């Protein structure tokens, strides 16, 4: 036996081994089947105008029928649920002429839905200009495009956006389904009002088939959608079900395919459903999101960093995670959320002396810090909150009261009615201390600048840190992704021991659906339409 036969045997072994390792025919991606209507149970959108509404429900419905300039990757396009790469939507390419000027080139031949008064005409640069300007004039989110100075039509298929200064978050905001969707001007001119179902005319993968207020909204496939081959589904029906227990019951009874637009089930519900309905497919996902205790860091006693650090050390994050979240949550939840892998600097990579304020638990040290700050006997503080948040929040409030009580901080709960909470406390108008989850964002600038820069709506702890402000502005203007990442990491390192917020462990969601649903991948963007266009039913 010479080397040749040896290498032949070698080759055979490698080949056999390779073949054995290949996935079997079942595991290979199945060919999507066309047809079927997907049934989802969820709440009703409060209104339908995508620019005027701030509710994620409205934006999810809107994402079924409207498109944007750019979007995030979904389905087979995405690498992971928090993949915020920028993918072409109506704009097939874009180019920065300078740091403050970008030109978008639109696809040709994209048509609006064939419904009056738009009647399936082609999308042009004028529609983009109209939509962006309307968004900037009317939307509650217009601050997202604040640095945009002007939008001009270059030619029939090109649009130029000019900025006041370099603005790194621009493309991410344009890709977010909650903001700038492209609308046809005729609807405003002829129908006056985007809040009616017959006004929902866009270029998206689905069209509105019927809407019975309070009962259901039915979508059907857009046969002229500009991406070929999708959507696979004939239609999607959202059965309006305001009560969460009822939604889960509908899922258990097989009357719907998903018990929530994005398939969410909280860990507790998921465990219970797994026992009664083992066939239901569940995927735990650490979603983008954050919850925290926020404090008036501009007033005593929380203006003293030692007091804030004591608060941070008093919360037994691991204990909460192990007991309430079955150990499946993320304890290192802030200031950049766990799921934003591309931007997050994990606590393990920060020096332990600082990182302990992010993930540590040391009630003894907490008491010592309080004494050092002049509160040897602790103090009493109100805690404002809305008691209606879904589990595990009810338990979190009780646990926080208990944990803080153990270091001598007596918590007086001040539950508020939602309308009051969301227009006062949630916007930073509260005394001393409050607690609760916050709206998730897709752009890291929102987690940093919006949460820590003075006067910003998400700056609930009233942070005013000059050193920090410089870094926040710098990351916003830095167009080079690598340099920007370095600044973002520096910010996280800086914030670690300031304890402006005390973050609570983030609960995973179990994305659940009946086994017949295939191709549905969870994504942290709000796009319901894009993820459903890749979904199909195996029936």
């Amino acid at each position: 036996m010479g080397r040749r036969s040896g290498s032949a045997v070698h080759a055979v072994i490698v080949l056999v081994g390779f073949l054995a390792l290949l996935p079997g025919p079942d595991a290979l991606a199945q060919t999507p089947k066309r047809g079927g209507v997907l049934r989802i149970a969820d709440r009703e959108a409060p209104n339908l105008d995508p620019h005027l509404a701030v509710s994620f429900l409205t934006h999810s419905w809107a994402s079924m029928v409207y498109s944007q300039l750019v979007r995030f990757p979904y389905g087979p396009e995405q690498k992971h649920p928090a993949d915020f790469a920028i993918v072409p939507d109506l704009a097939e390419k874009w180019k920065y002429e300078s740091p403050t000027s970008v030109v978008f080139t639109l696809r040709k031949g994209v048509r609006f839905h064939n419904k009056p008064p738009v009647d399936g005409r082609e999308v042009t640069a004028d529609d983009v200009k109209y939509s962006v300007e309307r968004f900037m004039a009317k939307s509650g989110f217009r601050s997202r495009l604040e640095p945009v100075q002007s939008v001009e039509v270059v030619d029939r298929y090109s649009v130029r956006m000019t900025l006041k200064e370099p603005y790194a978050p621009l493309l991410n905001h344009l890709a977010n389904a909650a903001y700038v969707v492209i609308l046809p001007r005729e609807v405003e001119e002829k129908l006056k009002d985007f809040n009616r179902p017959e006004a929902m005319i866009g270029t998206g993968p689905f069209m509105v088939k019927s809407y019975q207020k309070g009962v259901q909204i039915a979508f059907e496939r857009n046969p002229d959608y500009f991406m070929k081959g999708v959507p696979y589904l004939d239609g999607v029906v959202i059965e309006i079900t305001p009560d969460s227990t009822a939604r889960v019951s509908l899922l258990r009874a097989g009357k719907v395919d998903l018990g929530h637009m994005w398939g969410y089930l909280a860990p507790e519900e998921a465990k219970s459903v797994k026992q009664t309905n083992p066939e239901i497919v569940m995927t735990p996902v650490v979603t983008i999101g954050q919850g925290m205790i926020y404090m008036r860091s501009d007033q005593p006693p929380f203006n003293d960093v030692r007091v804030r650090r004591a608060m941070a050390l008093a919360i037994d994050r691991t204990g909460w995670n192990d007991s309430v979240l079955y150990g499946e949550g993320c304890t290192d939840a802030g200031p950049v959320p766990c799921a934003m892998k591309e931007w997050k600097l994990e606590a393990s990579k920060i020096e332990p002396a600082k990182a302990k304020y992010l993930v540590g638990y040391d009630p003894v040290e907490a008491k010592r810090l309080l004494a050092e700050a002049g509160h040897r006997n602790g103090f009493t503080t109100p805690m404002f909150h809305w008691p209606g948040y879904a589990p595990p929040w009810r338990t979190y409030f009780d646990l926080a009261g208990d944990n803080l009580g153990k270091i001598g901080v007596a918590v007086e709960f001040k539950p508020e009615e939602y309308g009051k909470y969301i227009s006062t406390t949630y916007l930073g108008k509260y005394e001393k201390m409050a607690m609760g989850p916050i709206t998730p964002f897709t752009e890291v600038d929102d987690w940093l600048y919006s949460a820590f820069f003075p006067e910003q709506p998400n700056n609930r702890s009233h942070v005013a840190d000059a050193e920090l402000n410089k870094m926040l502005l710098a990351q916003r203007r830095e167009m080079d992704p690598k340099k920007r990442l370095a600044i973002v990491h520096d910010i996280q390192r800086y914030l670690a021991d300031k304890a402006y917020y005390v973050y609570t462990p983030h609960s995973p969601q179990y994305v659940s659906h009946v086994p017949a649903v295939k191709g549905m991948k969870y994504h942290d963007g709000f796009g319901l339409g894009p993820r459903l266009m890749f979904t199909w039913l195996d029936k």
Partner: protein
Amino acid sequence: MRPYVLRRLALAVPTLGLVSVIVFSIMRLMPGDVVIRMVEGHAYAPTIDALRRELGLDRPAWVQYADWIGGIVLRGDFGTSFWTRQPIWDEFIQRFPVTLELAALTILASVVIGVLVGIVSAIRQDSAADYLGRVLAILALSVPYFGLAVLVVVLPSIYFKWTPIWTYVPLSTSPLENLKIMLVPALVFGVTRAGPIMRIMRSALLDILRQDYIRTAWSKGLPERAIVLRHALKNALIPVVSLIGLQTPLYIGGSVIIEAIFRLPGVGLFFFEALTRLDYPVVQSVNLIIATMVVGLNLAIDLSYAFLDPRIRYR
């Protein structure tokens, strides 16, 4: 009687006026700013100001009130929702039949159960049947109706992979389907309402049956009993009727949770969601419409007193 009726009708107007002022003030006093609530604080001051102007909230309170009431009285226009910008009357008229049907079926269920059990309990006072009846009534009273609703929805889904929730179909489209959908929620709601009816029925009936001339007639035997019962019932129904009357707002308010759990597109849910969203026009107008109905209903009930008890004739 007639002058009384006319006087009552005339007084209904200031009553409703009072209602309108109260609800208008309550909404303005509720903490939280509707404009900020609508944009959840994301907007700049200029956008907030523009929105405030658009919704007419920058005008003085009395002007807003006059505009609202004026619209109703002069044009029959109940205003548009701050959130959806759609006319309130249209949405109300679409949703009201659902709540009305739910209320009617619930009252029917609770009256049938409550009156029957109450009669049996009273006639056979202190017997085993009486004790059973009273215990059942207490049990029905002490179960929160939303708890029962959740149980009825969740338990079958766990054990039988079935749940009594369907997509709503209006009565006009398919009566059979509609009744199937309404049956379970009406029963759940009705059972919990039957308790007080049963107890009041029993108590009132006992009072009447205790009177000497009644007892004599009763002891005479079956044919007399039937006559006595009919007479006694007529009087015993007075407090029952007034109980139903004063519980009517409960059916509208309490129906919220039932409508949410059983997916019924009724007024209760419409009202509740508007309240949470500080949608002033919806809360004000819907409240006023319902108040008008309740006032009318109470008038009818007071008139029925006069019918049921001849001694009550108003001077």
